[in-house]
């Protein structure tokens, strides 16, 4: 291992920080995807039942009675929110990936230049 020029070291530090950010975004994305699946399944189940079926909703430590229409409205709202969050996270992921690719190329070019010079 030869000495790494300080400029390249700075770039490497930046790269590491981007990679950490990417990891965080990926984790958040996975969590949102799990919630999204949960909500989708719940909607699917509620849509199957008759209009007058009793439906209950968890409110903190209590469970409160609600109905099909209300719960579907609420769940669809939640679904929409989650989808917006997911697409925002996806955009963030894409941007970070681009930045990482750019930085990697820069670092490689700098190292190659160093070897040649």
């Amino acid at each position, binding site marked *: 291992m030869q000495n790494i020029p300080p400029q390249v070291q700075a770039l490497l530090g930046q790269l590491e920080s981007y990679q950490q950010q990417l990891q965080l975004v990926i984790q958040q994305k996975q969590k949102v995807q799990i*919630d999204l699946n*949960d*909500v989708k*399944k*719940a909607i699917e*189940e*509620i849509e199957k*039942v008759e209009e007058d*079926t*009793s*439906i*209950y*909703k*968890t409110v903190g430590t209590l*469970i409160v009675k609600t109905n099909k229409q209300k*719960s579907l409205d609420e*769940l669809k709202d*939640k679904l929409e929110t989650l989808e917006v969050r997911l697409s925002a996270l996806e955009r963030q992921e894409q941007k970070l990936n681009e930045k990482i690719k750019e930085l990697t190329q820069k670092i490689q070019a700098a190292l190659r230049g160093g070897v040649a010079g």
Partner: protein
Amino acid sequence: MAQSQEALEKLAYEYQLLQAQAQLLAQNLELLNLGMNEFKAVKETLEKLKEVEEEKPEILVPIGAGSFLKGQIIDKNNAIVSIGAGYAIEKSFDDAIKYLDERIKEYEDAIKRTQDALQNLEQKLQDLARKAQKIQQEQAMKFRVQKK
């Protein structure tokens, strides 16, 4: 010599990585089994309760530490089952059992997939161990030749 040492280190690193993965899968498998057993227990409760003849049977409501309060089931035809996202639906016992069966099936599939993945990893771990052993043997052989 240095080359085989490097190869050994690489194998050891790979081995650790795969081992960590296998541990994670084994943990998942345990959780999946626990989850499935919970669903099976509820299903059994509903099935057995159906066989009870009284319309509103007297029961003991568990309050923990092996203690109970006396209670009565006022609706022996419907159960309320959780469907995720904080919601629960009232279902007839038969529908509830059907729903539980579907969830149990999902658990079984997930368990099967996890078991397969775990087996796959264990196979890879064995292969890695064998490779490392081979390199070590070759190293030992070279040692002997050099000594002469």
